[in-house]
């Protein structure tokens, strides 16, 4: 704080909390929210329904028994590939056979590096 100086221990806690609140506000505006907890504030009261083309839940694929993604029969990231193989969701992934064989070149671990999967414009 620039104009108010906290001088007792409670004030220090208030200042820390104010900074935390500000960071939270910035975080929920800008960042991609993963399917796993902690939930974004606007979804505090219920399960996270990913907005998308399908509203059909197949347990084991999109969400495990607890509503999370930790216990899926395969990881969410892997699921992405299956979209176009079995055409379960009409989600488009780059053509890795001919045009974009290096699409996952920077993605050694899908769980950690999924942000490095980029959009491809034909």
């Amino acid at each position: 704080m620039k104009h108010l100086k906290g001088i007792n221990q409670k004030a220090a806690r208030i200042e820390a909390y104010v900074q935390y609140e500000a960071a939270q506000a910035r975080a929920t505006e800008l960042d991609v929210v993963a399917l796993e907890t902690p939930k974004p504030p606007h979804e505090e009261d219920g399960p996270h329904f990913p907005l998308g083309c399908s509203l059909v839940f197949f347990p084991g694929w999109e969400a495990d028994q607890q509503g999370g993604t930790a216990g899926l029969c395969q990881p969410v990231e892997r699921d992405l590939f299956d979209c176009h193989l079995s055409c379960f969701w009409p989600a488009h992934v780059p053509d890795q056979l001919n045009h974009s064989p290096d699409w996952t070149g920077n993605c050694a671990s899908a769980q950690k590096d999924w942000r490095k999967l980029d959009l491809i414009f034909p």
Partner: protein
Amino acid sequence: MNPPVATASQPLALREFHAFEAHGARFLYMVPSAGIFRMDGPSVAILDALQLGPRGAESLIEELSSDYPLEQIVETIEELTEIRAIGDVNAPKQQVPNDLPPEGFPLTTMVLNVTNKCNLACTYCYEYGEDKIVDTKYGDAPKFMSEQTAEESVEFLLAESRGQEVAHLTFFGGETLLNFPVLQQTVAYARRRAAEEGKRIEFSLTTNATLLRPEIIEWLADNQIGVTISIDGPKEVQDGLRVFHNGKGTYDVVQPKIKELLRVHRTRPIGARVTLTQKNMDVLEIFRHLTEDMGFWEVGLAPVTTQDQRDYAITPEGKDSMLSQFEVLAQEWLQCALRDEHHGFSNVKDTLEEIHKGVSKAYGCGAGLGLMGVATDGDVALCHRFAGSPEHKIGSVTEGIDRDVQNKFLEDHHIASKTDCHTCWARPICSGGCYHEAHVQYGESSHANLHYCTWVRSWTHTCLEIYGALAEKNPKFLERFDA
């Protein structure tokens, strides 16, 4: 939860705080968070402007833009909003909910009433005087706590202190030293058992000093027992109130014993505890005598707890006189603190500690929660002043605490239930005050101590000013209050 942030269309208004000054700086004591903030030029200007009434942000900016850059005004409005000093004029006042403390709240201090007997007959005593709660003279309770009950109490403390590494055991009475054998046995037992449980117990006791003898003084020093001596001042004061059963004064008996105690016992602080009444009001003389003439390191003074009709009850004018003398001592305390010197007026030190932490109390006291009193028969009460009173029993050392009774007590005594307190700025540090005081004055322990509101606000304001002065001129001194 986000603060109610004012938008361009919503006027801003002052929210709750208590302003004070020290050495030219202005501070805010936030209510009810108890955070203390030092203000700068723009923040003072904004609060002064809003003092005249709610206004929109643009209006404030317009008025102040000749004195401060626009960016600073906007930043300051945001910061003042974040700490809840200002906010939307329509924002509801946030009420503290009557929530119970988290489950498993540890007991940190247990006061053992080792005896109901006393060898003195001090006129104003809350235990034996006209305002007593428990009839210890003719009642059924044992006159002395047995060794077995004391050991069971130690087990109770070890269990109820849960994860706390350090617990506190205070011996009390009656006259505590009348049961010296049990004190010796209990301290030895408690030390051993605490070590077995990976904990440490710190001991203290209160005594009228008439029964101090070399053997006891040596035991106190060897066992590092903190000692509080109940004493009211110089001879003419002491002998007027603190008398033997035959009416004789006690000063000549206790003075050499205290001198010897102070000479020998150097392992823990030794404090004097003074009860002020309408008959002994010369605070300054009492303080000087006890610190300079007798050599006490610290003196704590408290007005007597009593109903109004007693002849030693303090009149409103009497209270004013006491408080103004307290404030003289407080200024002395400040001058010493600015020089990093010790001053024995512990009333200031205790209040400053709470101000530094920024306590915002849900209850007037930790009694019945973090502190409990045990009667001679092992019944557990809210505190030592209620020990032995069936109405205020919350369990026993053998059976534990009755959680239903405890929770009901906590709910009834929560600040949320004290509507009289809800608009008072001092409520974070006062929260209605002592339950025993309320019981004696109003017949109901959950009543707010309205007869002390003026005193508490005045005293807290003085201590806030002292705190601000130290924050400005000797902030290092305040580090001793860091938890």
